[in-house]
Structures are given as C-alpha cells and as structure tokens.
C-alpha cells in the first residue's frame, strides 16, 4: 500500500481510538457504574464526577509513565548492575569506576564551563539585541535574522560552524571564515582550531550561543515591551541617563523573565550533545556529560557506567528545572 495512505489510516485509527476511548469510558461510567437515576442518583453523579478527571488523565499518565517514569527507574537500576557479570547487582561500583576516569571529570568540568558561559552570553546578547532592535525601523528584519538559527537543528548548526572553523593546507585558499581572517591578518599558517584545547570548547559554545540568542531575544523583547512606558518617562524626568534607565528601571522590571530565560537555556546546555558529537566527538578535551554517556552506553556498550552518568546529568538538571518551573509560574501570575 502507498505510505501516504498508510499514514492516513494510522491517523484516522489513532484519532478515532482516542475519541472512542473518551466517549466509551464516559458512557460506561455514567450509564453502568454510577447511573444518574435510581435511589442514589445524587450520590452517583457526585462519584462519577470525582472519577471523570482520571478518565481523561489516564492516557497521558500511561504514556508519561511508560516513556518517562519507567526509564528513570530502569536507569537507576541499570546504574547499579554490571553487564559483564550478567547484570548482577554491584552497588555503587559503576559510580566508583566513573569517578576514577579522567574523561568523566573532563566532561564534568567542561559542562560547568558550558553552564556558566552559554546562558550568560545568550541572555546577555539576547537582552542587548532586544533593546537595540526595539526602536529601529529595520528592527524586525534584524530580529528575524537573529532568530533564524533557532530553526536550524543542532547538527545542522554544527556542520555550518565546522565549515567556519575549517582549515585547508597552508598556501591554499581558506574556505573557513575564521582561518581566512586569521591568515590574512597574521600571515601565519592556518590553525586546526577544533584541536586546540580549551579554546575549542569555547568555539563549540559559540555555536550554541548563536542558536540560543534568538530565543532569549524574542522572549526578552516581549518582556521589554510590557514595561509601562510611563515608568521610563518618569525616569527621564527624574534625570536618569539611558544606561541608568536600562539597568535600574528596565532590567529590574523584567528580572523574572530574565531568570526564566537563563534557566531554560541552562537546561538546554546541560543536555548538550549534538554539537559536540558532530564537531569533535569529545576529542581534544571537549568532552561533555551527554556525549560521555553516549560513548559509554552505545559505543562501549557499558550500560552500567552509561546509566550512572545519565543519573549525574539528571541530578544536575533537576534543581534548575524546579527553579525554572517555579519562576515561570510566578511570571504567569
């Protein structure tokens, strides 16, 4: 059968099943389990109404349980077992092994660096772009351009930037923009930028900053527009200069949004995988936790240590996630 037809049938069956489930389960509840008639009609209606929300929640809870909660539990279990011993319980041995590996510490250290630099610069540039483009005639075009990287996948962005950092043999035309500029101004031989430790990590971070700045800008621009114009005018009359207005009047008023943007980007950063995987694969001291986990889990087939590193990522993300949700809720009020 034609794949499009198959897809259509799948959609019809899926949506039909959803509608059928909600309709049938409510029918059964109202008609058979707690019918709204007979001597206990009032009590039955109340009971049916108490159960009804769970009918609606059931499919979502099942899916989340199966694909989110269960994997977490399973990862915890796997992190305490060893594959070579046929999946026997080994306690914290995997964690111990991981702690002993310099590559793990390198990944953790790099992740911390990513954690500080990427959210700070993305939010900073985003705020700057939001403020500067707000009053410009061509501001909307500038905004679209800054936002556009958001539409590119991480792997796509990694490929683009790999070309930017590309090096050709000395004496030939440099197609990498960075080397082209470097060679033109310094006259030295082109550099393999991605192999130079420390700076190569920074070069990888630039890719993510490039992607995330657009996100920060869009959210912060909306927040800046929400600031009452009169408070700015009052500050002008009060004699504040443009910098003071920005930092003492505008930024404090959108602090909540800044925190939400910052923490959202932080979570993205903690999970960063594609960029490192596609550009250096963790070589030359650029390893990060997610890529380390992938190495262990799918390359070395060591599910014990792989799961242990996954747990470390989760423990790092969790507090930031809680804070992020807390702040986002506060903003919504």
């Amino acid at each position, binding site marked *: 059968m034609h794949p499009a037809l198959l897809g259509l049938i799948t959609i019809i069956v899926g949506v039909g099943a959803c509608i059928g489930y909600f309709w049938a389960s409510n029918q059964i509840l109202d008609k058979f389990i707690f019918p709204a008639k007979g001597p206990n009609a009032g009590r039955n209606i109340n009971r049916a109404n108490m159960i009804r929300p769970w009918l609606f929640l059931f499919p979502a809870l099942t899916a989340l349980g199966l694909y989110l909660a269960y994997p977490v539990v399973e990862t915890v279990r796997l992190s305490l077992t060893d594959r070579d011993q046929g999946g026997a319980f080994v306690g914290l041995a995997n964690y111990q092994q991981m702690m002993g590996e310099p590559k793990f510490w390198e990944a953790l250290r790099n992740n911390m660096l990513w954690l500080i630099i990427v959210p700070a610069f993305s939010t900073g540039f985003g705020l700057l772009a939001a403020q500067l483009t707000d009053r410009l005639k061509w501001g909307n075009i500038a905004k679209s351009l800054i936002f556009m990287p958001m539409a590119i996948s991480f792997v796509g962005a990694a490929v683009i930037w790999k070309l930017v950092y590309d090096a050709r043999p000395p004496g030939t035309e440099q197609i990498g923009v960075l080397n082209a500029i470097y060679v033109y101004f310094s006259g030295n031989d082109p550099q393999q930028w991605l192999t130079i430790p420390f700076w190569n990590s920074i070069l990888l971070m630039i890719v993510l900053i490039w992607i995330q700045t657009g996100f920060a800008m869009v959210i912060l621009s909306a927040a800046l527009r929400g600031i*009452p114009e*009169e*408070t700015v*005018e*009052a*500050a*002008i*009359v*009060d*004699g*504040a*200069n443009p910098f*003071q207005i920005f930092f*003492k*009047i505008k930024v*404090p*008023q959108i*602090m909540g949004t800044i925190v939400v943007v910052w923490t959202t980007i932080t979570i993205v950063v903690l999970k960063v995988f594609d960029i490192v995987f596609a550009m250096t694969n963790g070589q030359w001291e650029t390893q990060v936790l997610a890529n380390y986990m992938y190495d262990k889990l799918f390359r070395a087939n060591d599910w014990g240590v792989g799961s242990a590193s996954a747990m470390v990522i989760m423990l790092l993300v969790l507090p930031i996630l809680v804070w992020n949700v807390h702040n986002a809720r506060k903003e919504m009020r």
Partner: protein
Amino acid sequence: MSGVKLNNVIKRYGATQVIHGIDLGIDDGEFCVFVGPSGCGKSTLLRMVAGLEETTEGQINIGARDVTRLDPSDRGVAMVFQTYALYPHMTVEQNMGFGLKMNGHPRSEIDAKVAEASRILKLDDYLKRKPAALSGGQRQRVSIGRAIVRGPEVFLFDEPLSNLDAELRVEMRVEIARLHKEIGATMIYVTHDQVEAMTLADKIVVLRAGRIEQVGAPMDLYRDPDNKFVAGFIGSPAMNFLNGKCAAEGVDVPGLAMTVPMGQAAQNAGTEVSIGIRPEHAQIVDGDTHVVELTEALGGVSYAYLKAPTGEKIIVEERGDERSKTGDRVGLRFDASRAMLFDAASEMRIR
C-alpha cells in the same frame, strides 16, 4: 520659583499639526489647568513643557531660561502621571529618592528630603513598602511625593486623578489644593474633568483641537465665555443651546416658543444665532410648551430633561419640594439678562 511662558508653540507629527501656535503666560506660583475634550492636545502640550515631546517650533521659557531644547531633567520640572508610573521594583522610599540619587545628591540630603515629602503627604507608614502593596490613592500620593522631593520649579500633573474612584478623587483633589497652598510652586494640571478644573485652578486654559479657546479665572469663564465651545464646556450640566434668529424686538427662539428681549439683537437683526441658557438659570413654570422626558433626582437638586416644540433638548435644574415628573407638560421661564447669544456660524459670542 518661576513662571512658565509659551511663545507661539507648535507641534507637528510629520505633516500632521496637532498644536497650532500656543501663546500662554503662567505666573509664578499659579495653579494653571489645561482642560478640553480628549484629543485636544492638552496632554501633548504638557509633555512639551516637560520635554517628553519635542517642540517643533516656538519657545518655552521657565523663569528667565529658554528650555525649549533642554532635556527634561534639566528643565526644573517634575511630573505626576495618570498611571502613577511608580518603579515597581523599588520601595516607596527608593521611588521618591530615585531622582536625587540619579543626580548624585548625598545620601543624607536624599533622606532628609524624602522624610519631608513623606511628612507632607502622610506616607511615613508606607516608606518600606513596594507600590504593589499600596492602594490607588496611596500610589498617587507617592507619585506626588516623588515630584516634591526633586524640588522642581514647576509641577506638571497629567490627569492624576483619572484612575481613582469617585470618592478618592474628591479627597485627592482637596489634597492637591492643600499641597499647592503649602508649597506655593507653579503647577500645570491637565484634566478633561471640568469640575477638577473649576475647583483647583487659578487660571483655566480651555483647549480645542490644538488651539486655545479661552484663558481666564474659573468663574470668569463661567460667567463670561468668549464662544459657544467654552460656554458649553464649563459648567455642569452643560449650557443649553437653542437655535434662534435676531430681530428688532429681540431674539426669536422657536424652541422656547417666544421672542427673548435682548439688547444685542437689534443691531444684528437677521443673524442666525444660538441662545445659551444655563440649567441653573431657568425655572419650570405652569404652561404647555415643553414636555418633561426624564428627571434625574440627585437629592438637593433634580435635573429635568425637557423636549422643546422644535425637538431640541433643554436641561433645567430644579430645587425645593415641588418638582416635575416625567410626562408633565410645562412652561419655561428664565432671566433674559443671564442668557447668552452666540453667532450660529462662527460660534463667537455676541455681546
């Protein structure tokens, strides 16, 4: 302390001109109210004095200084906004001290001035609170306090009471009047509410479509308006206008079913006019020329809405125990010497 002088001030947005050459002098210590319907340019004019809107042409002086091209903060003005415009992330104290802090005044001086303003406005209990924890009236007091602290030569109020409820508005009105007496600074106050204008002003400036219609003391505008617009704008309820025609023996007014004997009529015989009668200057008497369509009893006074034979509407104020009822057929009497005559075409007063 110093007055304000506007000299042929013009404002254009691109090709659209909104302020058409305003000349106005406001004396030192005077309370001047700009009043007019929405869109008349009164707020724009105030913002031009504040420096928040650029002046396209003309000159603005505060005291002896030409401030036309100065930054708002260098003009010696302080502004109170309709929406309070308090900085939400600062306490009341920080809000009031912000202007001085930005201009690098020492801490002790800021504290002293904030304390003084808070004493005048009775804000001592709220100094550590944020604006969100204050009521509308308190917020507006803080906003006024912020203006006082800066010790400006001129206070600018942009419809400061419009966001308050009716009761609080009366209270704050009294407060602002008291403040003016206590501080004695020049104040410019924008409102569309003619009651605020009448009660607060030393001088009212009536604006329409970017032009001054008339300038004068409140009761002078009420008693002696220059044109139909001012006559209709000042006074509540508004003056009644009826179409008529001048003749030798007086003004023939079909809406009153009579000829009103007025001295000015003879030399303007044949001119189409509007005759203006204030609701408080007319009385309902026995007769059958008018029909009462509606009465509004406010307690001390009632307003009867009459329909004239020509279909024109007339509002009459009634006091005392005998008041008309809806559907009554009545007559109308008034003192012809208090009626005013306006040219129907130019709307100017015929004196």
